[in-house]
């Protein structure tokens, strides 16, 4: 049993095989989470530029949104995704990528979350995501 929220989040991420596949690392300051996706060659989607695969950038933001929502709703379980929309703004360079999410609203059944991924400068995001997720408490209800 871990005690701090950071340890709990890190432990929950550690249990997700796909998060390990992407080598994701959680950094938590207060209740604000930043996920780090260290650069690795297997994340490349366009070997010519080279650029990160859009799918993994999307996946990073989705996992960030799910984790931030789990923290915000004080749930130990990850919510289910209803839909996500991803806008790609710049190609992802072969360097470490970061993502942060903001829970816009937690409704009785549906939660709305926005997320952003960036590399060098946070003011120049490479992609943004907005998504709807089942509010954890009413899953299956």
């Amino acid at each position, binding site marked *: 049993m871990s005690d701090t929220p950071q340890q709990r989040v890190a432990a929950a991420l550690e249990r*997700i095989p*796909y998060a390990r596949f*992407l080598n994701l690392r959680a950094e938590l300051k207060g209740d604000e989470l930043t996920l780090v996706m260290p650069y690795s060659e297997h994340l490349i*989607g366009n070997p010519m530029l080279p650029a990160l695969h859009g799918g993994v950038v999307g996946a990073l933001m989705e996992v960030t949104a799910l984790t931030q929502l789990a923290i915000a709703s004080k749930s130990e379980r990850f919510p289910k995704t209803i839909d996500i929309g991803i806008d790609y703004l710049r190609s992802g*360079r072969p360097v470490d990528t970061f993502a942060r999410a903001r829970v816009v609203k937690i409704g009785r059944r549906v939660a709305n979350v926005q997320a952003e991924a960036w590399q060098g400068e946070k003011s120049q995001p490479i992609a943004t995501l907005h998504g709807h997720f089942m509010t954890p408490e009413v899953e299956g209800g």
Partner: protein
Amino acid sequence: MVGDRRRALVAKGMSDETPPPAAYAAGNDPLERVKAMIRFTPQAAALGMEVTRIEPARVWGRVPYRPDLVGDPETGVIAGGVLTTLLDTICGMAAVAAMESPTTVATIDLRIDYMRAAEPGRDVLAEAHCYKLGRSIAFVRAVAYEDSPDNPIAHVACAFMVNSSAGRKFGANVRKKT
């Protein structure tokens, strides 16, 4: 600023001067050419993704079930991110498969609706259709399923920039900007 930059990128996409990357153009058979695209895409290879069939503007693909791609260890359901990557990839390929002479594409946006969780232990199949190829933009939709597209796991609609690498040289992303 972002808007200006995107418009500039889109404007670049209108030039037809850049030849297709040699690796993408390997062989004349479209299926072989698209299979080469996957071999030279490290993330697609890392997921074990395959293209199973190709027709003009349509591509069918698959990602095998693997325990290390699971997103929910309690149920063993494959991660949403794997579907995002599969769908993004085969949609991009469908856009390329719609072209007379292939060029590169880059995703502008995509939206995924999840109808249900994927069945644990089963490969995920997908089929994509590029229903409009413009000079600058390609519109593509796709579904992911196990047995039939009539019982979909997820649906995606996306837009791609056509000839996205125009004016950008090999290794452009690792060079210092001047």
